C-alpha cells in the first residue's frame, strides 16, 4: 500500500486516488514564463496539488507556503468556486509532507497518468541545470507566480472533483448526472434531497475522474471578491504555528554560529568556557561553524557565543569599497546580456542634449521578523524536518544529502513563515538544523539563529552599480543606454542548489532594466556580472529591486533635463507602448491630484516599474517639518489583469512598497574585515508606524494577463521616494540608503 506522500509526487493531470474513507483529487496544468532557469519552461511544471475529501470534510493540500501573501486563502477560493463548498469549510494544509497525508494509508493506487510525463520533464530540467535529475519536483513559492500558477489548476481540480462526486451520486440515485445540482458541499437530487460530499467520497474514489469545462467568470461567487483570510484568527490570537513555535515531546533547543567571514573556513575553536554554562547539553562541530544544544534557546545562544572560534578569511575583498571596486570592474568586460538593443545608441541624435548619471545601491538583508530556524528529528534511517520554507522539495533533497538518506526518508513539515521575502527559499537553515539533530539521534532539536546570526548570514540582495547615458530632445527621451553591474543571484543559486556552475544570459539580473514599456527609439540595456563570492540571493522583486531605482531615477533626471513634468514625460513615452501601464500612471495622477506643482515644504515623486507581469505606478509625497523630512502619503495603482482577491492585492501592494521604503531609507549591509557590520534592527532599521505613509491603492484590471502581486509593489517605491526628495530639496539621490543623505524622520 502506497502512502499518500508517494501519490502526491506521482499524480499528474487530473487524477484521483482512493484513500482510507475518501478520495483525493489532483489536477495538473500550468503555463508560466521561464524567466528564471530554476522554474519550469512554458507548459511544464512539477507541482501536484490535491483536494482530499473524506468523512472529516474537504482538505486542500496547498503546495505554496503562506508567508503573508494570502496564497492559501485564494487557492482555497479557486477550489471552492468550482467545487461548491463554503470557503470556511475547507481545511488548508501546508506542504507536501503534511502529517495528515503521511498518516493516511491508501486503499489503492489506480492513477491515470495522461498527457504528461514527469520523467521527460525531469530530464529536460536536468539538462537545463546540469543536474537536479534526482529532484522529484521543483516546488518554489516565489517570483509572484502563485496565482498565475494556481488559477487554472485549482479550478480544474475543483471542477473535476465536483463532477465526479455528482456521478457517484447519480449512480446511487439511478439518475443522470445532468439532473443533479451541487451546493455547500452537497449534491442535490431532483427531489431536493441532499447527499453530502463526505458521504460520496468513497464511491467517487472508484470512478474515473470527470473532466469538465470551467465555469464562466460571470458565475463566480468567490473569485474577484475579497475573502476573509483563513489564517487571520490564528494570527490575531497567537495560535498560528510558525517554524520557531514547533514543540515536540522531549525537544531540545540549539543555537548556531557560522563563520561571519562568509564562506570562510573554521580553523578551530575552544569551547571550554561554554561547556559548563547552565543548560548546555552538547557542543556540535559543524565543520564551518559551531552549535550548542541546550534545554532553552536563550541558554544555547549564551553558550554558543562563549565559544572562542578561530575563523578563516572570507573569499572576497574584506571592505565594502573593495567589493564595489570589484563590481565596477565588471563593466570592463563584455556584457552577460543585452536584452534590449533598439535603434542606434552609438550616435547622439543631432541637437539632442546628453544626460549621464551613475548610481549605486548597497547589499541588503531580508531581515524576516522570524529569525531563521528549523526543527529536526533524526533517527538514523529517517529524518523529519519542520520549518517555514519556500522550497520544500529542495530542502528535502538538501536535508537528505546532509543526512546521507534517500529523499523518501525525509519528511518536510512546512509551517507558516514569519516572513519569507526570498530568504526562506534558501536551504542553509534546514541543513544546519539537520546537522545539529544528527548529533543527538532520537531527540528532536530546534535550532534557532539569533537575530545577529540571521542578519549577518543572509543570502543578500547584491550591491549594484548602473551607468546611464541618455538624450532628450524636444521635451522627450530619444536615447537610453544603460549598463548594470552586479553579482548574479541566479547563477550563484543554481550552483548552490545543484553543484554545477550557472551560465548563460541572466534575465533576472536585468529585469526591470531592459523590459520597461517606454517608447524610446534608441534604447540599449546591458547587464554585466561581477565575479564575487559574497552569498547573494532572491530578495523581494530580485533584479527589479535595484533596476527599478536605476531606471526610474534616470527617467526622472531626463524629464528634468527636458524641462518636463516627470509624470507627463513618462506618460507620453508609455501611452502608445502599453496602455495598461499608462493607465497606472493616469490613475496615480488622478488619485494624488498631481498638477505638476505643490506647496512649499512638500515634495512629490513618481515612479513606475513593470515587474512580474504587473505594471505599478506610485506617487510619494514628503513633507519638511522643521528640517526633518517625513514620508506623508503614497498613492499606488497597479493593473493585475485579473485580481482574484482585491483587498489582498492591496495589502501586497502597500506591503511591498513599505518593504522597498525600508530599504530606501535605512537598508545597507556593509563589510569590514570580511564581516557584515550590521547586527540587529538598531543598525538595520525599517519603516515603523510613525514613519509609514498614509497609503491609497487602486487595483485595475485591464491588462491581458494576470500579474503577480507579492513583489511588484517594491521596485517603484525607492525611486518614487528619491524623486520626491529631489522635488523637495533639489538634491538628487544617486545612491541608497537615503538616511545618510537626507534628514529623514527616524
Amino acid at each position, binding site marked *: 500500500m502506497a502512502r499518500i506522500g508517494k501519490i502526491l509526487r506521482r499524480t499528474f493531470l487530473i487524477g484521483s486516488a482512493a484513500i482510507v474513507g475518501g478520495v483525493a483529487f489532483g489536477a495538473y496544468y500550468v503555463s508560466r514564463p521561464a524567466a528564471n532557469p530554476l522554474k519550469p519552461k512554458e507548459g511544464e511544471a512539477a507541482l501536484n496539488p490535491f483536494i482530499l475529501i473524506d468523512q472529516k470534510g474537504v482538505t486542500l493540500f496547498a503546495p505554496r507556503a503562506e508567508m503573508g501573501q494570502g496564497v492559501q486563502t485564494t487557492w482555497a477560493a479557486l477550489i471552492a468556486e468550482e467545487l461548491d463548498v463554503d470557503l470556511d469549510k475547507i481545511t488548508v494544509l501546508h506542504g507536501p509532507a503534511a502529517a495528515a497525508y503521511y498518516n493516511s494509508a491508501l486503499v489503492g493506487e489506480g492513477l491515470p497518468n495522461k498527457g504528461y510525463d514527469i520523467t521527460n520533464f525531469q530530464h529536460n530540467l536536468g539538462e537545463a541545470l546540469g543536474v537536479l535529475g534526482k529532484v522529484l519536483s521543483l516546488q518554489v513559492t516565489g517570483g509572484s507566480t502563485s496565482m498565475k500558477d494556481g488559477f487554472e489548476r485549482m479550478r480544474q481540480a475543483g471542477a473535476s472533483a465536483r463532477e465526479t462526486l455528482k456521478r457517484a451520486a447519480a449512480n446511487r440515485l439511478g439518475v443522470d448526472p445532468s439532473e443533479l445540482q451541487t451546493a455547500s458541499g452537497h449534491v442535490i437530487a431532483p427531489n431536493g434531497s441532499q447527499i453530502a460530499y463526505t458521504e460520496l467520497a468513497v464511491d467517487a474514489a472508484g470512478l474515473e475522474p470527470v473532466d469538465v469545462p470551467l465555469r464562466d467568470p460571470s458565475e463566480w461567487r468567490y473569485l474577484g471578491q475579497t475573502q476573509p483570510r483563513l489564517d487571520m484568527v490564528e*494570527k490575531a490570537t497567537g495560535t498560528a504555528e510558525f517554524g520557531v513555535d514547533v514543540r515536540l515531546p522531549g525537544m531540545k533547543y540549539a543555537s548556531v554560529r557560522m563563520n561571519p567571514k562568509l564562506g570562510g573556513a573554521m580553523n578551530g575553536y575552544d569551547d571550554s568556557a561554554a561547556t559548563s554554562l547552565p543548560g548546555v547539553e552538547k557542543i556540535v562541530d559543524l565543520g564551518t561553524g559551531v552549535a550548542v544544544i541546550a534545554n532553552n534557546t536563550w541558554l544555547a545562544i549564551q553558550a554558543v557565543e562563549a565559544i572562542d572560534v578561530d575563523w578563516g578569511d572570507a573569499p572576497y575583498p574584506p571592505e565594502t569599497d573593495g567589493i564595489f571596486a570589484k563590481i565596477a570592474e565588471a563593466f570592463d568586460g563584455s556584457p552577460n546580456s543585452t536584452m534590449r538593443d533598439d535603434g542606434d545608441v552609438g550616435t547622439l541624435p543631432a541637437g539632442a542634449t546628453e544626460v549621464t548619471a551613475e548610481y549605486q545601491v548597497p547589499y541588503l538583508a531580508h531581515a524576516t521578523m522570524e529569525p531563521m530556524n528549523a526543527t529536526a528529528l533524526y533517527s538514523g534511517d529517517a529524518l523529519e524536518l519542520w520549518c517555514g520554507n519556500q522550497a520544500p522539495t529542495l530542502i528535502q533533497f538538501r536535508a537528505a544529502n546532509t543526512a546521507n538518506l534517500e529523499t523518501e526518508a525525509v519528511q518536510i513539515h512546512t509551517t507558516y513563515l514569519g516572513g519569507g521575502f526570498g530568504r526562506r527559499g534558501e536551504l542553509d537553515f534546514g541543513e544546519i538544523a539537520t546537522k545539529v539533530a544528527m548529533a543527538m539521534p532520537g531527540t528532536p532539536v530546534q535550532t534557532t539563529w539569533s537575530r545577529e546570526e540571521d542578519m549577518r548570514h543572509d543570502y543578500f540582495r547584491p550591491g549594484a552599480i548602473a551607468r546611464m547615458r541618455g538624450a532628450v530632445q524636444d521635451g522627450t527621451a530619444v536615447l537610453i543606454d544603460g549598463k548594470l553591474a552586479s553579482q548574479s543571484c541566479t547563477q550563484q543559486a543554481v550552483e548552490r542548489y545543484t553543484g554545477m556552475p550557472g551560465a548563460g544570459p541572466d534575465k533576472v539580473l536585468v529585469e526591470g532594466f531592459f523590459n520597461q514599456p517606454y517608447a524610446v527609439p534608441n534604447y540599449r540595456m546591458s547587464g554585466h556580472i561581477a565575479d564575487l563570492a559574497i552569498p547573494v540571493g532572491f530578495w523581494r522583486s530580485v533584479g527589479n529591486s535595484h533596476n527599478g531605482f536605476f531606471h526610474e531615477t534616470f527617467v526622472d533626471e531626463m524629464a528634468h533635463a527636458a524641462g518636463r513634468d516627470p509624470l507627463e514625460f513618462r506618460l507620453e513615452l508609455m501611452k502608445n507602448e502599453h496602455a495598461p501601464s499608462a493607465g497606472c500612471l493616469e490613475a496615480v495622477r488622478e488619485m494624488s491630484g498631481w498638477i505638476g506643482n505643490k506647496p512649499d515644504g512638500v515634495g512629490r515623486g513618481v515612479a513606475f516599474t513593470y515587474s512580474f507581469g504587473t505594471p505599478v505606478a506610485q506617487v510619494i509625497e514628503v513633507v519638511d517639518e522643521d528640517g526633518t523630512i517625513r514620508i506623508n502619503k503614497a498613492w499606488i495603482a497597479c493593473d493585475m489583469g485579473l485580481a482574484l482577491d482585491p483587498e489582498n492585492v492591496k*495589502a501586497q501592494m502597500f506591503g511591498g512598497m513599505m518593504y522597498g521604503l525600508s530599504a530606501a531609507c535605512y537598508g545597507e549591509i556593509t563589510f569590514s574585515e570580511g564581516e557584515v557590520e550590521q547586527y540587529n534592527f538598531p543598525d538595520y532599521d525599517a519603516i515603523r508606524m510613525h514613519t*509609514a505613509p498614509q497609503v491609497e491603492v487602486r487595483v485595475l484590471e485591464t491588462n491581458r494577463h494576470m500579474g503577480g502581486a507579492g513583489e511588484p509593489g517594491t521596485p517603484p517605491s525607492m525611486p518614487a521616494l528619491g524623486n520626491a526628495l529631489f522635488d523637495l530639496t533639489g538634491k538628487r539621490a544617486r545612491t541608497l540608503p537615503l538616511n545618510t543623505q537626507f534628514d529623514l524622520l527616524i
Partner: protein
Amino acid sequence: MATTLKINGTSHQVDLPDDVPLLWVLRDEVGLTGTKFGCGVASCGACTVHIDGEAVRSCQVALSDVWGDVTTIEGVGTPDAMTTIQQAWVDHQVAQCGYCQSGQIMQAATLLAENPTPTDADIDDAMQGNLCRCGTYPRIRAAIHDAAAKLKEA
C-alpha cells in the same frame, strides 16, 4: 531554585537560571509560543507581554525581575472568544505573515487601556517600537481606531 510566576491567571513553577529572559521562559519552558522572538534587544516589540497590565518587552525582563502577573496573547483572548481588539484585527484583515502581530496587539491593548480615544499621533507614539516587516501599519492603525470606537460603545 524554582521561581513562581503567575501567567494568564495560572501559577507556574519555573526551574531556570535567574537571568533567563521572561520571553524564553514563556516560549521554551511554559510552552506559550504566541509571544515571539524577533531581536532580543528590545528593538522590534515582537515579544511584548503585559506585566500587571503594562506592556513590556519580555526579552529584556529577567526571570528573577518579573514584578507582577504576566499576561500573554494567549491570555487576552482565544480563537473562539476573541477580545474587541483581536476582532478588530480580523475585521481589518491586518496580518500578513502575522509574526509580529501578537506583540502589536499587546502593545495596542495597553494603549487603549491608557487612552480610550487615541489620535493618529498617539498611535504613532505608542506603536513605533513594534516593527512589522510586511508593512501592515495602515491596517494596524485602522484596527486600533475601530477597536477604540467599539470599546467606547460597549
